[in-house]
């Protein structure tokens, strides 16, 4: 078991190196530090001197992958790639192009992000499981037909509509909750109520349909027939036997998503003015702050890979039939 985990983690590290190389090429080879300087200085004041100064200040004044002027090992180590990418592995994110400390920002913003993402996720799974079970319970009736039709409709609406319409209805017309903003402590509940609800509704259509097929698949199995032929009522079969067995794959599949919750919800946060990592990312993209975008790419992929490793482990823990290959 330990052997297997170590192997998976090492493979994860290998992928992370690949991600780093790819983003480095994307951000530096094509969009050179000169371009970045020009964008950041902006306007008419761009001169060769200004660009050189900007690059020295930000530490972009070295060759990309190979430094011919240095000697020995320094030929490789005194390059942008080593100086900009390797510290990421030690979670040293450095300063953004506008001079702010990225690591500090991340620590400040992780909590609000999590405060939004975690309830959305947990409540969402609960609601979706309940709804899809009800759909399965009423299968072959008009309840199922209309609920499936409604789910397909929900699926076809852009998430942005839910946000705009929800804000309009609950904040502007009914004035139940503030339209946007954030506060620490218990006050945050007021600000989070609407985004959490909208987050659940906008995901519900697709996921309810997906879980419904999962439950329907489960319902065709032998043990369900056995339970029915024992004379158990349909609700007992469904809510005790089927739910218990289907919950395992559902829970193990959610493990992959868990680490990514830290990244926050991009759109939701910027619409509701929640100072989390999602809105941080969007601001960085709009401001063309490549240092922040690169840090977020690294963080995002590291968390994704962590999710993959955790999924593998949870499968082997949950299902003894899975062999460790």
């Amino acid at each position, binding site marked *: 078991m330990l052997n297997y985990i170590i192997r998976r983690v090492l493979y994860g590290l*290998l*992928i*992370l190196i*690949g*991600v780093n190389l*790819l*983003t480095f090429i*994307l*951000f530096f080879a*094509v*969009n050179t530090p000169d*371009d970045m300087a020009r*964008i950041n200085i902006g306007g008419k004041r761009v001169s060769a001197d200004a660009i050189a100064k900007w690059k020295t200040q930000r530490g972009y004044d070295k060759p990309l992958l190979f430094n011919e002027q240095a000697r020995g090992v320094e030929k490789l180590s005194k390059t942008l790639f080593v100086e900009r990418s390797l510290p990421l592995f030690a979670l040293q994110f450095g300063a953004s192009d506008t001079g702010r400390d990225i690591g500090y920002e991340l620590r400040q913003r992780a909590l609000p992000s999590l405060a939004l993402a975690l309830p959305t996720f947990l409540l969402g799974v609960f609601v979706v499981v309940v709804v899809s079970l009800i759909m399965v319970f009423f*299968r*072959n*009736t*008009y309840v*199922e*037909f209309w609920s*499936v039709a409604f789910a*397909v*409709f929900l*699926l*076809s*609406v*852009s*998430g*942005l*509509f839910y946000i*705009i319409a929800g*804000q*309009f209805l609950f904040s*502007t017309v009914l004035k139940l909750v503030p*339209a946007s903003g954030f506060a620490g402590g218990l006050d945050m509940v007021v600000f989070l109520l609407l985004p959490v609800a909208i987050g659940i509704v906008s995901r519900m259509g697709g996921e309810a349909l997906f879980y*419904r*097929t999962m439950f*329907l*698949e489960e*319902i*065709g199995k032998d043990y*369900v*027939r056995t339970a029915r032929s024992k004379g158990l009522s349909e609700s007992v079969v469904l809510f005790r036997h089927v739910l218990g067995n289907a919950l395992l794959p559902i829970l193990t599949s959610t493990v992959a998503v868990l680490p990514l919750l830290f*990244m926050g919800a*991009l*759109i939701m946060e910027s*619409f509701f003015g929640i100072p989390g990592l999602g809105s941080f*990312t*969007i601001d960085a*993209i*709009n401001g*063309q702050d490549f240092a922040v*975008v690169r840090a*977020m*790419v690294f963080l*995002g*992929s590291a968390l*994704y*890979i962590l999710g*993959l490793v955790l999924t593998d482990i949870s499968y082997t823990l949950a299902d003894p039939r899975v062999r460790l290959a």
Partner: protein
Amino acid sequence: MPKFVLLATDLALYFQMLVLVLYVRHALRTPLLRQSWRYVQRDGAAMSAALVLVVFLLIALLDSVHFRPRLPPAPDAAPAAEIAYSTRTLSVLDVLLTGPREAREKTYSTPLATHQFSKESIQREGVTVRDFPRLQYGGRHLEQPQEQWGGDVLRRSVNGLGSGLLVVVLGAALLVLSQSQRSGQAFMLAALDLLQGRSALPWRAIGVTLTVLLLLAAWVAALWPYYHVMGTDQTGNDVLFVCLKSVRTAVVIGSLATIATIPLALLFGILAGYFKGWVDDGIQYAYTVLSSIPSVLLISAFVLMIQVFIDKNPQWFETGLERADIRLFLLATILGLTGWAQLARLLRAETLKLGELDYVQAARAFGVSHAGIMRRHLLPNVTHIIVIVAVLDFSGLVLYEAVLSYVGVGVDPNTQSFGTMINSARNEMSRDPVIWWTLSTAFAFMVALVLSMTLFASAVREAFDPRARAYRVRPAGASTLPS
């Protein structure tokens, strides 16, 4: 003769039409494929959805024939002077809708309005007053808008709907007649059969959809020359016209991005599944790396890149439209290039399964080359996966475009798209009184497009993947699930 302009996305759309036609021809000649598609044909929801999709596709195609009209020669020009062309590129759709396109107001106006939405200082009988000014185009034929407006709108609506209904009734009668001729039934019996949904093709569902579409079209056709049917936006453009223009952007993003994923996914998926070993390891590594980068960030990185490229090379593009178009084209390509991992994974799994089957082993034993096996024995047997994924991805991509536009890495700000419309609607909804019509029109169009694609896709999946049929909804009275 106007000067025809071939934009990159036009070319891509034509190419896709060609591929579609070739596929249809191929499907008609292959009994197995014909049978699968017949399954889709029998599905009422899918056929209605297909009808709506065809309408959207027609709009997109009309909007994809671009040209620059010839300018009238200058009065003092020599007769042999070079012909001058307008700098504005128009499409066939623009020409068909010249009226609404040129009927630009100053700013917002509500649907069917005769007056502007906001007050302005206007001169009236020598005195300056603040009032709602009359619109330049909306309701300009009315002398006394306050009294005549209601009656005029009602009269024109009834006219439009009435003529639409006439067409529907005539069409329905013709359909029943042809059915009764074919089956030799009496006219009324054939009509009853169709009404109760007893026909090989789901005529009842198609008929209902067609009726709704025709009535809507007739109503719009009756009112559009005189009013802005869905109001105007901030810069005074007709909202319905902008929506119709946005259809092309959505179709291009949805289809082009899907098409762009296929070559890479097909190549890597089959290679990985067929050769296994280190080839498989390498390809798996590549797509795990790609899919572990958050997609919005990966796409923004690419888009920021192409934006720098476009800004650096302005000499390559003659008009603003060409510049905006190349961005749309590259955006769709990027969506394809970053999205191939999912499809490649499915294709790899299927190829792994197929590779173990007897006929592939036999081909190998007979000494068929690797390329030959992959092309002749594996490729045809994985195409159903491509068809399923292609139709499933389309709606997701249309929705994704709106998100990308919001993040600021979507289409060019000058390109009309649902994303940019929703983006502007964000501020409009917080105004008081609220400006609801831009958002609701964009909403209606987008839901119609995405919903029909979703319905069509689910029927296609059921037709090509029999396992999916087990989860079909059967309303009361139908046979129960096999258990």
